[in-house]
């Protein structure tokens, strides 16, 4: 092998890395929608093409008017189930482990991105649309995890029943699986009672109908 070989390798890596980086940067902001049209082979054709319309950035991905997203977040101490309900420009999210850990978060959903926090700002959720799923990070206290929550169709979604200071919250996932946590007046938490597919739960001996949470609900 010639002594220049490794230098060629280094140069090739640098060129490839910088090249991909530049293509990425060219797609930022008011760049043309198709970065490949900038390649040199089409240079001759470029003058003939009409100038692009006043450089408006491509519209960011937008949320449907109403949508539910459900994802599982593997953690060191088991799996968290995460539900995000988007309604207009508001979103509500609920994460729980079906046992003792739960967190309610709310905030805005604009331009395909959600930014949510709980009441005392100890839990946060930042996510953005990627395809039909929301991906991002969820933090509860000091812990932080990546999540990927695909869109889910009803009856999948978020359900709640609150009475006499006892709040039961459930997530129904796309496969019909239910995960929920019950929080009592003294802030103690426990697994929520069973929720049937038609939203009925038996709480302390009384059959109740859980309420489906919408993005602007006040939970």
């Amino acid at each position, binding site marked *: 092998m010639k002594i220049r*070989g490794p*230098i060629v390798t280094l140069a090739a*890596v640098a060129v*490839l890395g910088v090249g*991909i980086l530049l293509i*990425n940067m060219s*797609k930022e902001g008011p760049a043309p929608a198709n970065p490949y049209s900038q390649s040199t082979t089409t240079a001759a054709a470029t003058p003939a093409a009409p100038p692009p319309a006043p450089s408006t950035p491509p519209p960011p991905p937008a949320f449907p008017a109403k949508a539910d997203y459900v994802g599982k977040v593997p953690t060191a101490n088991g799996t968290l189930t995460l539900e995000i309900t988007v309604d207009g420009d508001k979103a509500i999210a609920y994460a729980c482990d079906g046992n003792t850990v739960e967190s309610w978060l709310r905030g805005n959903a604009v331009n395909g991105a959600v930014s949510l926090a709980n009441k005392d700002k100890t839990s946060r959720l930042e996510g953005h649309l990627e395809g039909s799923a929301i991906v991002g990070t969820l*933090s509860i206290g000091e812990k932080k995890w990546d999540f990927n929550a695909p869109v889910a169709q009803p009856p999948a979604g978020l359900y709640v029943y609150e009475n006499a200071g006892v709040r039961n919250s459930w997530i129904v996932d796309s496969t019909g699986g239910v995960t929920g946590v019950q929080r009592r007046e003294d802030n103690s938490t426990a697994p929520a009672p069973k929720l049937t597919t038609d939203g009925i739960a038996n709480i302390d001996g009384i059959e109740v109908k859980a309420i489906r949470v919408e993005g602007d609900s006040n939970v």
Partner: protein
Amino acid sequence: MSDTEASTAAVPAKSSAVAVLIAVGLGALVAVGLGVFGKVHEPQFFSINLAGFSSGLAVKAWLATLAVALALFQLGSAFAMYRLVPGGKAPSWIGTAHVWSGRLAVLTSVPVAVHCLYALGFESYDNRVLFHSLFGCFFYGAFVTKMILLTRKGLRSWVIPVVGGLVFFGLVYVWLTSALWFFQTNGVTF
């Protein structure tokens, strides 16, 4: 490859040591530079990628897996070149195969690394992510060091194997903290 033969030549130890120091210094600069870029650059949550996979993460996981497979061949062919495998003489093509599989491995890793640095950045919110960020920067630093050292003759015989081993170690740990995690949480999906 020439570096194996050159190792026995008697050369002033001083210039060899300086060359190693320069190479390590440049590698360290690259590693720190990548880390700083990843830390200060605003994550874009987006980077161009290959079509045909279910998600950007799947593309990255499979490219990384290809790079690790090539790296395993790197390890094997390096052992053969240093006659550490039983059976005596290595085939004559092994040096060339080592060079080209290495080039392919590192080039395969580049789109993945650009995605990491451009779309996500250097993060430390859990141990996996922190170590992945550290090993990712380390890998390219060690790679730069090794490429520079390969252009030097008269290095001590252990220098290239040690640096090569560090490059291999870096890539394997990058893979363990990313692609393996991806396959474990999402299943082996394309």
